């Protein structure tokens, strides 16, 4: 009997991940809503958007792992796709403010009134309409990734050079978004949001819904990526990561595979950004800063590159540590801690948390189909004798 493909697609850790994620998606809102504040298990309000933020970062990390872990594209510019998705959602919420802004202009956001802009720039058109904004959340990062990838992969830019130009991409966008005349609120970015689809973004119930939606987006994106990496497409990606020229000699159009993975990854990053912004209440150009993109790669490395689950776990673990460190006495040392963590992980756990645990489990029970004939490390019996 063959299992349905979706069952075979998920391995043990995939199931664990989905079950834990589902549990979190239920437990966090319940502990916040159903319990009285006096209960010892009551979850304070501020934790809900904070956990929601972690889930968005986890989704972002999964997106980076798809291209880095499986296809060897070390993107140090994914923060840009995340921020663009965030800006698209932020623009929608800015348009929802309407006359409730400080200047009470029915159409123009406050910062445009302040800059004496006579009318809404054309690229803000349509953002008052939610489906259009959602489309842009996917389209803007997707198209940018397509154009960038089309040139980079076709000219066979790989390795460090590719990483550097992805850094340049996010850096250039940061400089652009910092400018007032770019039309995205300059260095203040977009903030003071009032509502989303008619619901108050500050309301605890809206935050709970956004939290659950983030968990759902993470689960669905994980499933999509998992399906993809288990398919023949995913095997081609890994082959490209390990022996790119060989894949060409087999007749595969390597740049198309890279481009498809890169564009999908950018769209997922955009979704993560779009869910992040209503939960944190602000998007500004610092989200484009090159260091942010590097941080994402650290999350993935810590959790375990090329495992998807590890990327999500790494994002949560590192960001939890960051929250813990950056509030309190240790705040000035966070960057040292992050740098130290990265060095430690690369030296001691080159496969990250999940990769190391998987190896450890595999060593405990080495007997499965893959190595059925006489242990993993031994050379196989020579076919000649």
């Amino acid at each position, binding site marked *: 009997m063959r299992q349905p493909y979706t069952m075979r697609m998920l391995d043990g850790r995939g199931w664990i991940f989905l079950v834990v994620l589902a549990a979190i998606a239920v437990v966090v809102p319940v502990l916040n809503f159903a319990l009285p504040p006096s209960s010892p298990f009551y979850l304070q309000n501020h934790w809900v958007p904070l956990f929601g933020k972690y889930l968005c970062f986890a989704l972002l990390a999964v997106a980076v792992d798809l291209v880095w872990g499986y296809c060897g594209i070390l993107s140090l510019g994914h923060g840009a796709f995340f921020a663009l998705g965030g800006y698209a959602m932020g623009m929608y919420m800015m348009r929802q403010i309407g006359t409730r802004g400080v200047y009470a202009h029915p159409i123009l956001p406050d910062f445009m009134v302040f800059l004496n802009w006579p009318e809404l720039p054309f690229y803000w058109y349509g953002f008052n309409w939610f489906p259009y904004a959602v489309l842009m959340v996917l389209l803007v990062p997707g198209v940018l990734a397509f154009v960038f990838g089309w040139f980079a992969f076709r000219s066979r830019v790989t390795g460090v050079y590719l990483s550097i130009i992805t850094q340049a991409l996010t850096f250039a966008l940061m400089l652009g978004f910092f400018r007032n005349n770019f039309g995205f609120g300059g260095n203040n970015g977009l903030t003071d949001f009032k509502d989303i689809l008619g619901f108050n973004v500050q309301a605890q119930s809206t935050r709970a819904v956004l939290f659950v939606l983030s968990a759902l987006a993470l689960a669905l994106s994980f499933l999509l990526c998992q399906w*993809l990496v288990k*398919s*023949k*497409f995913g*095997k*081609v990606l*890994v*082959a490209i990561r*390990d*022996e790119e*020229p*060989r*894949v*060409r*000699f*087999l*007749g*595969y*159009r*390597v740049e*198309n*595979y890279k481009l*498809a993975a890169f564009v999908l990854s950018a769209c997922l990053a955009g979704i993560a950004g779009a869910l992040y912004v209503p939960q944190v209440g602000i998007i500004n150009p610092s989200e484009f800063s090159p260091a942010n993109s590097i941080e994402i790669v650290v999350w993935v490395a810590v959790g375990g590159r090329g495992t998807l689950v590890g990327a999500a776990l790494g994002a949560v673990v590192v960001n939890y540590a960051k929250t813990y460190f950056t509030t309190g006495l240790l705040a000035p040392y966070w960057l040292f801690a992050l740098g130290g963590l990265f060095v430690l992980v690369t030296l001691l756990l080159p496969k990250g948390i999940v990769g190391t645990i998987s190896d450890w489990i595999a060593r405990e029970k080495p007997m499965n*189909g*893959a*190595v*059925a*004939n006489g242990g*993993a*490390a031994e*050379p*196989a019996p*020579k*076919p*000649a*004798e």
Partner: protein
Amino acid sequence: MNGTAPQSLLYLDGVTVSFEGFRALNKLSLVVEAGEMRAIIGPNGAGKTTMMDVVTGKTRPDQGDVLFGGDIDLTKLDETEIARLGIGRKFQKPTVFENHTVIDNLTLALAGDRRARAAAFWHEDAEESARLDEILGIVRLGEHRDRLAGRLSHGQKQWLEIGMLLAQEPRLLLVDEPAAGMTDAETKQTAELLRQINRDRTVIVVEHDMSFVRELGVRVTVLHEGSVLAEGSLDQVSADERVIEVYLGR
């Protein structure tokens, strides 16, 4: 050689490749007919691998014609296009996907739609799995089916790569040193395997191992300093004084 022109499966004429002034190929001319198996020998640095690089699109020649099937100009195409025409290659250093299982390596090589969307929705059908099993049998890796390719011995990797070539179903196979690092018995089996493949495909094989070349029993081309030094049966070329001087006599 100009007289024999186009209708041959592979036709190289006056091919020159320079690396910073050094001529790896120097007006190389070589014609291989459809259905033929050709052995290419020559000292280290003679340009054997470079010749394969030129045919498979890895290296663009500075000068010369490279024609496939009579009229397709290979110098205008890239690696992917050339592979899709039906030219497969085994590398000098065995190059398999070490993090994939043996069967996945073969599956990736298996002839079929190479486009990304087709790969995402690909499911093995009965015909394909029968073909994969057949290839596993031919290259004697049946019992290593689900093993990671990186865990195979050197000789097994060589065979896996030959299996991948077979799965590709090319018209022309370029095989660079298939017997390197093999035991005598394995070398013999490899020669047998290539003869078997040659029943319905054209094969060009580069090899240093003379007993292997003898085993193949095919026409031999001797390369030296980027051009053809001699061509004929192994006995003929081994009797050639220049060949003895530059290659065999050392």
